[in-house]
């Protein structure tokens, strides 16, 4: 462990990797925006899901990786440009009333975002692992998984 007084520099240099949902208003759909994240802010991105149609609102789910400082600046740039940003985990929700803990999602989720807790056999949902692929939505018989974009 580092003592508190020397940690500041480390934080700035620390690498981060986050999954975010970007909503592009219609006017921005045909503008080059994401490429600037690479050029100006040294961020790497991995597109998890994209739905961009000319003249319509665009949706992009990205995994952004880079240094904390540059990541923050990149996000600031996007916001200024008019892109609405949400973290992915806010958008995939389990309706607890409906879930029967059957575990169909456990079997089908490609990233292992659902886990059966061994002692209670309850299904835990780790939304930070979720890619919003939507497979669980159809696989869930009581339709407990909801994706809000």
């Amino acid at each position, binding site marked *: 462990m580092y003592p508190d007084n020397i940690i500041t520099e480390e934080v700035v240099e620390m690498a981060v990797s986050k999954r975010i949902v970007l909503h592009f208003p219609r006017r921005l759909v045909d503008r080059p925006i994401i490429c600037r994240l690479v050029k100006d802010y040294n961020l790497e991105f991995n597109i998890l899901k994209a739905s961009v149609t000319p003249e319509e609102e665009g949706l992009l789910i990205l995994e952004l990786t880079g240094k904390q400082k540059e990541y923050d600046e990149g996000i600031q740039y996007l916001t200024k440009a008019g892109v609405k940003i949400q973290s992915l985990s806010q958008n995939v929700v389990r309706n607890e009333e409906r879930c*029967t803990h*059957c575990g169909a999602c*456990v079997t089908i989720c490609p990233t*292992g975002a659902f886990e059966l807790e061994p*002692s*209670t056999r309850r299904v835990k949902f780790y939304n930070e692992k979720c890619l919003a692929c939507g497979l669980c939505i159809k*696989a869930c*018989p009581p339709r407990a998984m909801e994706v809000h974009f």
Partner: protein
Amino acid sequence: MELEGYGGNTLIIDLSTGRIKKEPLDKELAEKFIGGWGFCQKLMYDYMPVGKEPLAPENPIVISPGLLNGTLSPSCSKVCFISKDPVSGAVASWFGSLHFGIRLKWAGYDNVVITGRAPKPVYLKIIDDDVELCDAGDLWGKMDVYETVDALKERHGKTCSVASIGPAGENLVKISIMLIDKGTTCGRTMGCTMGSKNLKAIVVNGTKGIKVADSRRFMRTVDQLVERAMKDPNRDNWKRMALYFIWPLWESAGYITTKNWSETAPKSEMLGPYGQEEYLKSVVSTYGCPGCLAPDKAVIEVKEGEFKGLVAPFSTPIDPAMSFGARLAVGGLDRAFKLGDMANRFGIDFMTFPAIVGWMIDLYERGILTKVDTGGLELKEGFEVAKILLEQTARREGLGDIIAEGFIGAAQKIGRGAEKYAHHVKGTEPDFDGRVSFGMEIFSAQVNVRPSRDLPVGGLTIAKGRKPDFFQKIIPRTGYLSLDEVGRFITPEGFDLPRLTAHYEYWATILDMMGICFRMASSSLYNVATAAELYSAATGIEKSPGELLKDAERAFNLSKFLNAREGFTRKDDSFPSKWFEPLKRPDRGEEVVLTDYFGSRRITREDTEQMLSDYYDEHGWDVERGIPTKEKLIELGLDKAAGEIEKYR
């Protein structure tokens, strides 16, 4: 060619030599036997030699996930296990569930055929293409059912599904089961068969998924099924209480019996200390199989008393109360849970165990068993005796060594007319009582090629009180008989039970081939037409409802043939003598006798003999012997079996 909707391969494992072979799934098998229970019958026919002792190494275990396992269709996680039942010698099938069948199919396998006997304890690992027999030296003799699951998940990843046996299976206790992921049982004697093969566990995981031929078409039906399921008025009950929500209904019907099936357990106790309120105090969570909307299983935690802190999953949470609570009067739900948990960890079937002990108490009271047989133990109801005998059974010590034989073997060992008081059908105690409601499920349980209990229970005639016109309406909707045909069997006065049952069994067979759960909340979502539609959409092989029913009839006949080959005939189908005695209901001052479903006339032994004849006749079988005829087998395309059946006449 690659078949869509299937895993695509059959694994053949010879435990004696360690040889593992992978063969592509035979298209003809897929078309004629659909999957699950159907595949199991055909592969037993191909791999099982005739007339060997049940635990002979040559006898295989076949495991086949139902056709719909691993697809998005709801409530179809049933995977069929078949072997020669060491208690009765019948070719008998059992069902497992949870994630096992799905993982197996996703690994690419529709069947696993396991033959031989491993020279030393092993477990079978199937993780996609990585199939291996691994040394179980550190598990065998050291770990119970649950510890084995934990150890193997630790080793091979927590998303694996593990089927494991405990000390009872290792010690060849015939009434031992295998459990899957601690959370569901696979009865009744599979633990013993696995033990006899030195096979401690099977670990599966699969990541390949299933490709259905026409996913849009498939999902159209799936969406309709889900929509129906969401409207089930009992959904909240299942979610809150799991199967326990039917407990008061069973009490009122008369299914909760005690004193070796001679009377019903006291209502005040069953609805008091064993009632829903007490139960709900212990429920931690309810759970079901993947894709299930009506979870019937529960994890409980004992909150106070000597077993405080006990946390245990129960596949059928009413079973501890029904078996230990009612049958053995162990004195409270917490004690019933404790014994249920012990039995699960040993891998002992805790429906059969209390049934046998209840019978033995009866024998003891009659003087047929004495302290000489019990090793000085005073045989009586209650927790202490049950616990001692459970431990003895797991180790095959003392009286436990006789209990471990199951009803048939135990009656033989005891002799002295003990068999007369044993209530069983082909070695297994019936779950349901004909005196309470003599319907299709119960009739089928008597005559079924499988030992009692393990048959799909649609639930329609388990509960009394429905009128003939209900069945006239509902049966054509389920689709195993058309509106015209149903008129042959149902009149305003009642129904022709044996003939109706013969057709109902084809529907039950379809459920088992597709892997659809038999609980009413699940099976009633489907009908023959939706099953045929899902088969066609999944595999790309077009099949009409009529053709699917024919496939069911084929598999059913082959199953009957396999048992005829082992010497099972009409004599083995006759009804338990207990049902011709009244069932006393002391707290109601009533006696219940065997009547037809509608309660309009008494049924005698003679009547049931006529019913058997009608049942065989409706199946197109030899009425005198109760086995398939050569002509019937030829009609179903089972020519080879047809050539052999003459030998067994």
